C-alpha cells in the first residue's frame, strides 16, 4: 500500500491574519515495509505532514495517493483509510476516555463494526504488542496507570485497528529512558515481525539512527533531504545548519577524523563506531 505525495502544500487559516504555511511542495513516496523517520526542528512541519497521510488534514494544494487512490477524492472512504493508516498522536495518553483499559482499546475496532469475539481477540493482541498483561490491566481504569503505561494503552488503541501503516508522532516525548526504550523496541518488533510500514516523527537523532531504514529531513516546511541514515548523517554540516545535528556517535567520529584518525565517514551508531575503533586499535597495537 504505497503512499505518494505530489506537491503537497498546507496553509493554516488561509486568507486571514493568522495565515501560516506549515508545509510547502512536498513530494514523497513511501513504499511497503519501510521504517521511515521524519526529523526536523520544532515547527518544521513534521506533525502537519503526518496528519495528511490519513486524511485528517486536507492539503490546500497538491495530492495524496494511497494505493493509487486519491485520499481526498469525493468518493474516497476516509474512515476505511484511517483503519489502514493508523496514527498515534503526540502525548496520546490524553485521548483515553473509557472506564477500563480493555474498553478504551476496543474503541477503534468497535467503530469498524467488528464482532465481539473479533474485538476481544484484537484487544488481547494489541495489549500483547505493547507488553501489557491482559489479566492484570484489562479491567483497570486507564486513569490510574502511570504515564508510560497510559501511553502504551493509547498506542494499543491504534494497534487494535490493525493498520498496515503505523504513524507515530514523537512516541517517546516526555518519557524516562526506560519507557522510551520499551516503546522503541515495541515499534521495532512491529516493523520487523509484523511487517508494518512505520513512519515515526522524532527529535532524537540517536533513536532514528538505530531504527530507521530511511530518513526524511524537514526544515521550514520543506523536505530538504531524504536518504538512508548513512547518507544523511555523513552530511554533518547540512544537519547543523538546520539545527538538527547528528547522532552522538557520528559527532564523535567526525571529531576523531579531524584529529587525523583514519575512520570511515559513515558511522552513526555506537556499535558501528566501536567496531571500527577496535579494528583500528588492532592495527596499531599488534599484541
Amino acid at each position, binding site marked *: 500500500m504505497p503512499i505518494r505525495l505530489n506537491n503537497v502544500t498546507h496553509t493554516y487559516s488561509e486568507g486571514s491574519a493568522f495565515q501560516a504555511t506549515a508545509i510547502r511542495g512536498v513530494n514523497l513516496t513511501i513504499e511497503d515495509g519501510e521504517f521511515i523517520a521524519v526529523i526536523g526542528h520544532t515547527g518544521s512541519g513534521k506533525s502537519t505532514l503526518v496528519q495528511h497521510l490519513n486524511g485528517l488534514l486536507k492539503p490546500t494544494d497538491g495530492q495524496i495517493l494511497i494505493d493509487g487512490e486519491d485520499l481526498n477524492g469525493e468518493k474516497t472512504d476516509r474512515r476505511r483509510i484511517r483503519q489502514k493508516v493508523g496514527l498515534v498522536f503526540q502525548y496520546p495518553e490524553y485521548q483515553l476516555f473509557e472506564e477500563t483499559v480493555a474498553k478504551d482499546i476496543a*474503541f477503534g475496532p468497535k*467503530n469498524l463494526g467488528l464482532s465481539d469475539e473479533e474485538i476481544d481477540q484484537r484487544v488481547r493482541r494489541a495489549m500483547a504488542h505493547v507488553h501489557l498483561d491482559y489479566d492484570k490491566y484489562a479491567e483497570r481504569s486507564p486513569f490510574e496507570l502511570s504515564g508510560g503505561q497510559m501511553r502504551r494503552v493509547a498506542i494499543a488503541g491504534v494497534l487494535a485497528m490493525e493498520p498496515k501503516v503505523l504513524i507515530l508522532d514523537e512516541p517517546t516525548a516526555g518519557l524516562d529512558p526506560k519507557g522510551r526504550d520499551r516503546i522503541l523496541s515495541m515499534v521495532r518488533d512491529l516493523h520487523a515481525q509484523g511487517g508494518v510500514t512505520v513512519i515515526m516523527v522524532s527529535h532524537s537523532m540517536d533513536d532514528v539512527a538505530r531504527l530507521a531504514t530511511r530518513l526524511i529531513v524537514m526544515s521550514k516546511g520543506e523536505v530538504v533531504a531524504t536518504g538512508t541514515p548513512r547518507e544523511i548523517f555523513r552530511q554533518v554540516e547540512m544537519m547543523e545548519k538546520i539545527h538538527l545535528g547528528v547522532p552522538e556517535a557520528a559527532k564523535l567520529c567526525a571529531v576523531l577524523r579531524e584529529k587525523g584518525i583514519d575512520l570511515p565517514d559513515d558511522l552513526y551508531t555506537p556499535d558501528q563506531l566501536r567496531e571500527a575503533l577496535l579494528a583500528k586499535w588492532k592495527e596499531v597495537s599488534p599484541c
Partner: protein
Amino acid sequence: MLKNITMGQYYPVDSFVHRLDPRIKIVLTIAFIVAVFMVHSLVGYAIVLGFVYLTSRMANIPFRMLTKGLKPLRFILVLTFLLNLFFSTEGTTLIRLGFIHITHQGLSQAVHYSLRLMFLVVGTSLLTLTTSPIMLSDGIEMLLSPLKRFHFPAHELGMMMSIALRFIPTLLEETDKIQKAQMARGADFESGNLLQRAKAMVPLLVPLFVSAFRRAGDLAMAMEARCYHGGEHRTRLRVLKITQKDFIACAAMAGLILLIVVEGIIL
C-alpha cells in the same frame, strides 16, 4: 471546524484603535450601544453604519470579519424580525392575508430590533477584535475597582476572566487534537441522528474535562509557587494610561451621539 469563530476573537494587528486604553474602549462601546438605541430612523442607522465602517478601517480589520461575526446569529436575527413583524398588531394595517396581519408599526419595529441587534453584535465584536483578552480583563478589573470599597472582589473577578479567556484557545486546540485522535481511531462526529451524535461526543468530552482539570491543578500550583495571594499590594506589568488618542476617540463618539440626536430632531 473550529476555525470560524469570530465572536470574541482578537485580531492581532497594530492600529489606532488597538492602541486605545481598554477602559476607554469598554466605556465607548457602552456609549455606542446607547447611541444605537437612540436611533429612530433609517438615516440614523446609515450614520451608525458609516461610523462602524470608518472605525473598522482605522482598526485595520477587514469589514467582512465583522459581518462574518453575524453569521452564527442569523437564526436569531430572522426570528426577531419575524416575531416583531407578525405579533405586533397595533398601528395601521399594511397587509392582511388570512391570519397574517402586518401593520406599519410591526414592520418598523421588526426593522429596528433586528438592526439594533446587528449593531450590538458588531459594536462589541469591534471591542473584542481590537483588544487582547488580557487587556480586556485588565480594563474591566480597573473599571470595577471602585466597587472594592463594598467588598466586591474586582481583582479576583478580573483574574478569573483573564484565566478563562487565556484558556479558550488552548482548549479549542486541545479539542481539535483529541477530535482528530479519535477520528484516527474511526470515530465519526459528523453523521447520525441527534442521540448518536451526542453519544459520539463522550470520547471527546471526557479527555477534555480530564485535561482541563489537570491544567487547572498545574496552573494553581504554578501560581502558588510564585507566591500569588490575590489582589492586595499587587503592582502591574502594564500600567494603563489615558493618552491623547483616547480623547480623540471620546470626541469621535461624542460626535456620533450628537449627530444622532440632531438627526432625530430634524427628521
